[in-house]
């Protein structure tokens, strides 16, 4: 049952912005000659109240089912006119906009004749396209008001508490037998000087008290299916298998300091890592009177070319703690670039200098050499190698990703980078989101972070997740791709080209695109060799119609 196409065209003067260059009367007259156009109306300002109500009245009066507005840029004004269409009772996507201001009157002021011709062409193309517009509906999907937080280190615990504080249920998974993560083994947290264990205990106590958080220790994530608002996560914990329905997922799987096997005579006794030093500090078993710390051990080198962000501050913190215990202990920190960014860190760096910690820079080309009872280093001011007394050598090693990062990545279908840190949706503006809707990340799983940063990110990730969880249902405008399975040749082209890994083969062996996950770019539509993927928002028919209307 074909309904007759009835198109209304509205041409805006935009004061003299358009009318100063283009002959609006001529445009209206011309639009009237185009097929299926039943009414054409000029407006002084189409976006003003008189303009939008004019559209609504015209829809009623002329029984319009397509609306074309020739005015300014759709980037700012399309939503206004779509709303008018909706209010007039026609699908908001039965609307097409022609930009005769930014793309015409403003940029061809000195060639009115050509500008007029171009405006006619643009209107003709839009009317042609309008004939093939398809209605687009929004659809809803129920949201499970529970979050899954993977990892119960400082980041995961903070996220879980924040989510509970916002009123959502949380499933918290910890792979070890106890919550706490990396902080369990550490001494004190800088610069607050709170004991790391104390901080963990506070959080653990709060989690245990919080009825909304269900924590599973010795847990392994096994399978996750579904999509934003509606995931189903299966995991085992202490021999039992559970499946929880969750609306959002936070990845807080953390990281661990690199064990510097084979570097700088590391032996775990006289040559130890910073975290091993913290264990000593915690138990009060440090008696060395001369300590040399070496920075960038296993980091910022060709095989691991990243800076681990926090090791300089860890060294500074620990050197201060040593100085607190033994003021006369000699502490040398051998560094390449001190990463004491910001206010707090730089202040702590200064404090260490004040306390008598000595900082000596070295180059990658002439690294320190750990000898018996000393560390030899090229001292730039001396201009020669100098042996520094070292009863104890402490190596600052980078945080590296956990081995299980890859399996979590595979289960959640979210990417990791070459060093197996999880890859956020956008380095700048979506640092806590994955490209996949409904999954978020924080803490060392993303990249090495200080406790302050890990907590910040944890709270932030909780906020991102809450955006999903706070709704009973998620609405999604159907500007998405859909597979016509009748036509699908099962070639996997869509699966391979989608930048978001949305398409997959269903049980019948045909491609399937979950509309809640589709981002609406249209890449698969253009790639599908069987022309089996439909994209009503910008269909082939619309584009072809516009092309065909290029010439009068």
């Amino acid at each position, binding site marked *: 049952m074909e309904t007759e196409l009835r198109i209304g065209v509205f041409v805006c003067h935009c004061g003299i912005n358009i009318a100063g260059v283009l002959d609006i009367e001529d445009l209206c007259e011309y639009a009237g000659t185009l097929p299926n156009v039943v009414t054409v109306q000029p407006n002084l300002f189409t976006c003003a109240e008189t303009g939008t109500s004019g559209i609504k009245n015209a829809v009623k009066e002329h029984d319009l089912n397509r609306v074309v507005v020739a005015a300014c840029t759709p980037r700012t004004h399309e939503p206004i006119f779509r709303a008018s269409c909706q209010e007039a009772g026609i699908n908001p996507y039965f609307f097409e906009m022609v930009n005769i201001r930014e*793309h015409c009157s403003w940029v061809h002021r000195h060639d009115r004749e050509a500008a007029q011709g171009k405006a006619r062409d643009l209107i003709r193309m839009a009317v042609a396209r309008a004939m093939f517009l398809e209605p687009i509906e929004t659809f809803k999907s129920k949201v499970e008001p529970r979050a899954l937080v993977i990892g119960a280190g400082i980041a995961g615990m903070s996220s879980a508490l924040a989510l509970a504080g916002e009123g959502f249920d949380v499933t918290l998974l910890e792979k070890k037998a106890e919550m706490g993560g990396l902080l369990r083994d550490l001494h004190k947290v800088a610069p607050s000087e709170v004991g790391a264990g104390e901080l963990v205990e506070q959080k653990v106590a709060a989690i245990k008290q919080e009825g909304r958080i269900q924590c599973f220790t010795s847990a392994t994530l096994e399978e996750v299916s579904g999509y934003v608002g509606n995931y189903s996560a299966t995991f085992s914990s202490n021999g039992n298998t559970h499946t929880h329905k969750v609306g959002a997922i936070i990845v807080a799987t953390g990281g661990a300091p690199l064990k510097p096997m084979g570097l700088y005579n590391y032996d775990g006794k006289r040559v130890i890592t910073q975290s091993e030093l913290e264990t000593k500090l915690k138990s009060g078993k440090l008696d060395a009177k001369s300590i040399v710390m070496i920075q960038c051990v296993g980091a910022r080198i060709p095989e691991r070319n990243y800076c681990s962000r926090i090791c300089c501050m860890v060294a500074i913190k620990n050197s201060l703690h040593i100085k607190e215990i033994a003021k006369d202990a000699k502490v040398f920190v051998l560094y390449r670039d001190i990463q004491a960014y910001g206010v707090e860190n730089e202040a702590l760096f200064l404090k260490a200098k004040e306390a008598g910690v000595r900082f000596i820079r070295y180059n990658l080309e002439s690294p320190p050499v750990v000898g018996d009872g000393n560390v030899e280093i090229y001292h730039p001011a001396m201009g020669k190698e100098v042996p520094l007394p070292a009863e104890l050598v402490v190596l600052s090693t980078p945080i590296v990703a956990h081995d299980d990062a890859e399996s979590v990545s595979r289960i959640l279908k979210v990417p990791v980078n070459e060093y197996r840190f999880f890859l956020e949706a956008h380095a700048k503006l979506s640092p806590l989101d994955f490209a996949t809707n409904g999954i978020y990340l924080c803490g060392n799983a993303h990249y090495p972070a200080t406790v302050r940063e890990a907590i910040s990110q944890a709270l932030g990730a909780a906020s991102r997740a809450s955006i999903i969880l706070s709704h009973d249902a998620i609405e999604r405008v159907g500007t998405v791709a859909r597979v016509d399975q009748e036509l699908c040749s099962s070639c996997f082209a869509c699966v391979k080209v989608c930048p978001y890994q949305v398409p997959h083969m269903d049980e019948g062996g045909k491609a399937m695109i979950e509309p809640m996950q589709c981002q609406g770019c249209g890449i698969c539509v253009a790639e599908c060799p069987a022309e089996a993927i439909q994209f009503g928002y910008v269909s082939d028919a619309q584009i072809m119609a516009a092309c065909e209307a290029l010439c009068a």
Partner: protein
Amino acid sequence: MNNFEPLIAVFSCHYCSYAAADLAGSSRIQYPPNIRVIKIPCTGRVSVNHILKALECGADGVYVAGCLEGTCHFISGNFKAKQRVQYAKNLLSEINMEPERVQMYFMSAAEGAKFANVAKEMTETIRELGPSPLGQNKSE
């Protein structure tokens, strides 16, 4: 022949080049009135057949204008577009048409002047090539 006015179709992505065109407008940067923009969500939406269609229907030139390389809003759409434009050029060569009639450009939303320059450059390129044998100008 050289004062012929080419007709050029532009496939312009919503996030960058369309925004650049808007910026050219609000900055009142003047450029030749020969281009006709067809807005698409991402240049990855453009298929070879769209490009061919535009040429068949009389465009003297076609170009696809996407985000700067590496900054596509949809991650890899402009990369796909670049590949397809190259493929379309190959097809044109196969039927003895100048591949220069089809081009790919990259620009950011902040580059209004670049949008204008590209429009200028393409208009000049096509003017040099002369009317498309498929176009409305061919008999003039």
